[in-house]
């Protein structure tokens, strides 16, 4: 091998780090070639560009978010299994310290920002416009930009594994550890730039959906007639809009520290590393409510549908969502009680943190009362919802334990904390997102996911969850700290760690069953011919599955909560089936390739900043500016679907 290739291989491709990297290289190349081959062989490049890369249709964007987040769940899950394999037995040397650091960093970052976030956005996109009787979101072009910024942000983050080196300062990336002195190399820059780029997309989504819900509801759908999932999106969007800027600031300042040599977070020259921690958690705590509140929304829809009752205490559900979103801004310091800001500060934030349990408790009781004397059908969405209730209740209770500031000095950064936040994030967010996926899958694709395989997935994942995380509460009490990559054999932790690892593998098997379930159901899944496969309550179930791209041939007029259910009860379904002469030309946004190109330019700029190749960064930013200018002078970005085309589509669906 020539010398330059050897140097390049070691410096940028990390070929000196061993087989994990080599295997990944080979797999990535094979997958890449496979995708290119299939697209070329079946002549699908044009289809890919026209139907997906340039689309501004919220339903297709939702599907792309869903696919991306499932892929990221796989990557994050593999990371988790590597970590648990390393910790299965004492004095293990499956991974070295450096690799272990990198893997827990990518596991955390990917699961929160590149799995949970796109998963909630997937459900936003799929459900919200359909639930409020709109034809698209308020800003479809911005919606496409949001998706592609997320996509290229995630790509930038993941590419670090095989090009340049992964970040290794934890998903919180605290300075001074993440600062220029202790963390040389591009890994940390990858983290900062990738989050920055996808963060712009997230703010865009927050603004987009708040505007959509406030401005584009069907006539008659007052705020208090909206489905609860839509309400949860209102609360979430508010939190996104006001929380994400704090992350943007924290990341930007740390990036300046690293590549320009400023001193915002160094001890020298008047900086203060704790300020980063403060800023990070001003975003970080609202962030966990950003991902949990849409799950609450899903549970409200699922519980009502599968108990065949309207949801108990609608008004208190709305009030508690809004209360959670406000309180979420007053609790962030509980992530660093041990910083020692003072007894008064800790007392305030401890009480505020415990207060979150009140509106959350209201919601839990409302779901239970909705089920009470309902005619419950244990379909997959309902199964995950029922599993969520005890899991989240235990997670919430251990959360209140952690919120007690004096006790937190004991729990802080121990495995007790790890078990707690996995319990609320998996038991709350992942269960909720899977429930939502099963619930709206027929609406997206026109077929149901197979029940039997889904039940295997459910039981493996659920039992695996408790086997994995219950021992970690005990390990925390026994003194095991988070982020330790190896432990001696005489601590008494051996059995519990081994049990925990077995649980993690059971969850991995559960995930494989979900993959098998999707693949099996594409061919054999029950087809949804009515569009209302669950006997649903809200407007999205009044449409055929999959939904035609203009959504509603005629915008419905809403007269009550659970509008579709009421129409079915009073026999007014025909009111939603328009006659041919009612159909007017439908005003739609045009597809555009620019969101994709714009985001690719952001990727190039980010890549330039990561390696401090400023010429490349300048080139990328130039591309961004050109895209923005082109957009400013674009006037012809809308068109009308002629009525006869709508009539044809509707007739083919048997709705005219």
């Amino acid at each position, binding site marked *: 091998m020539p010398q330059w290739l050897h140097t390049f291989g070691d410096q940028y491709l990390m070929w000196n780090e061993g087989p994990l990297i080599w295997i990944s290289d080979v797999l990535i190349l094979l997958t890449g070639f496979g995708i290119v081959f299939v697209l070329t062989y079946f002549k699908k490049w044009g289809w890919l560009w026209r139907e997906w890369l340039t689309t501004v249709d919220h339903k297709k964007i939702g599907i792309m978010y869903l696919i991306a987040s499932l892929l990221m769940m796989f990557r994050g899950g593999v990371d988790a299994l590597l970590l648990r394999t390393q910790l299965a037995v004492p004095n293990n040397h499956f991974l070295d310290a450096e690799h272990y650091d990198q893997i827990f960093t990518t596991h955390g970052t990917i699961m929160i920002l590149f799995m949970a976030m796109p998963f909630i956005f997937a459900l936003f996109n799929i459900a919200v416009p359909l639930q409020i009787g709109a*034809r*698209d979101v*308020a*800003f*479809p072009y911005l919606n496409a930009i949001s998706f592609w910024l997320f996509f290229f942000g995630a790509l930038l983050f993941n590419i670090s594994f095989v090009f340049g080196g992964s970040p290794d300062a934890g998903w919180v990336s605290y300075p001074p550890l993440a600062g220029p002195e202790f963390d040389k190399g591009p890994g940390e820059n990858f983290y900062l730039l990738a989050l920055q780029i996808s963060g712009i997309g997230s703010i865009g989504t927050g603004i987009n959906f*708040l505007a959509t819900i*406030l*401005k*584009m509801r069907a006539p008659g759908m007052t705020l208090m007639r909206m489905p609860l999932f839509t309400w949860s999106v209102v609360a979430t969007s*508010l939190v996104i*809009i*006001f929380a994400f800027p*704090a992350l943007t600031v924290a990341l930007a300042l740390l990036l300046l520290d690293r590549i320009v040599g400023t001193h915002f977070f160094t001890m020298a020259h008047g900086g*203060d590393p*704790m*300020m980063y921690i*403060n*800023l990070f958690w*001003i975003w970080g705590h609202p962030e966990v409510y950003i991902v949990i509140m849409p799950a609450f929304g899903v549970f409200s829809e699922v519980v009502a549908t599968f108990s065949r009752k309207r949801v108990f205490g609608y008004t208190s559900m709305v009030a508690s969502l809004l209360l959670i979103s*406000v309180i979420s*801004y*007053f609790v962030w*310091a509980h992530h660093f009680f041990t910083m*020692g*800001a*003072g*007894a*008064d*500060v800790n007392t305030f934030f401890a009480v505020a943190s415990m207060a979150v349990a009140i509106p959350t408790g209201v919601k839990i009781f409302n779901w239970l009362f909705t089920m009470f004397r309902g005619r419950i059908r244990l379909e997959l969405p309902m199964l995950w919802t029922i599993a969520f209730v005890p899991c989240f209740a235990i997670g919430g209770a251990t959360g209140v334990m952690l919120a007690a500031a004096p006790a937190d000095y004991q729990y802080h950064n121990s495995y007790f904390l790890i078990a707690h936040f996995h319990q609320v994030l998996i038991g709350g967010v992942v269960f909720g997102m899977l429930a939502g996926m099963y619930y709206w899958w027929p609406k997206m694709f026109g077929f149901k996911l197979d029940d039997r395989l889904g039940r295997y997935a459910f039981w493996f994942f659920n039992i695996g969850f408790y086997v994995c995380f219950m021992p970690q509460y005990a390990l925390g009490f026994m003194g095991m700290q988070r982020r330790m990559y190896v432990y001696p054999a005489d601590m008494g932790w051996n059995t519990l760690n081994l049990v925990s690892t077995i649980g993690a593998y059971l969850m991995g098997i559960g995930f494989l069953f979900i993959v098998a379930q999707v693949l099996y159901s594409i061919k054999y899944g029950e087809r949804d011919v009515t569009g209302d496969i669950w006997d649903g309550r809200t407007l999205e179930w009044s449409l055929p599955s999959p939904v035609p791209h203009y959504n509603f041939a005629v915008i419905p007029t809403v007269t009550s909560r659970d509008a579709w259910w009421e129409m079915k009860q009073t026999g007014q379904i025909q009111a939603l089936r328009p006659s041919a002469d009612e159909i007017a030309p439908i*005003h*739609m*946004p045009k597809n555009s390739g620019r969101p994709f190109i714009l985001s690719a330019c952001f990727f190039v700029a980010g890549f330039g900043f990561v390696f401090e190749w400023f010429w490349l960064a300048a080139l990328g930013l130039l591309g961004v500016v050109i895209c923005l200018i082109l957009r400013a002078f674009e006037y012809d970005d*809308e068109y009308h679907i002629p009525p006869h085309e709508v009539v044809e589509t509707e007739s083919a669906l048997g709705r005219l």
Partner: protein
Amino acid sequence: MERGAQTTQHGHHSPTLYIVGYVLSLVLTAISFVLALTHAMSLGPTMWILMILAGLQILVQLFFFMHVTEGDGPPYHSVTLLIGLIFTFAICLMSIWIMTFHYQSY
């Protein structure tokens, strides 16, 4: 999708408004940058002036670029703005409270 309808309702703003706003925001930024860079004053007064300049900057953005006084339908933007102000002030004041470590002076 609604964009086309809205521009016809509001008509167009003259570019003067935007240019004035742009110049004002640049001037405000320049003043604070110079103050921070040259240490022309002691820390206390500099802090106060910077905060006042930041407040003015918010007003410039709201009135010159975001047209906070215009709009039709229910005043959702006022509600959102109010929530935003509450969050902003709460976060700033509590951050100062947390980050002064005042118990250490006891």
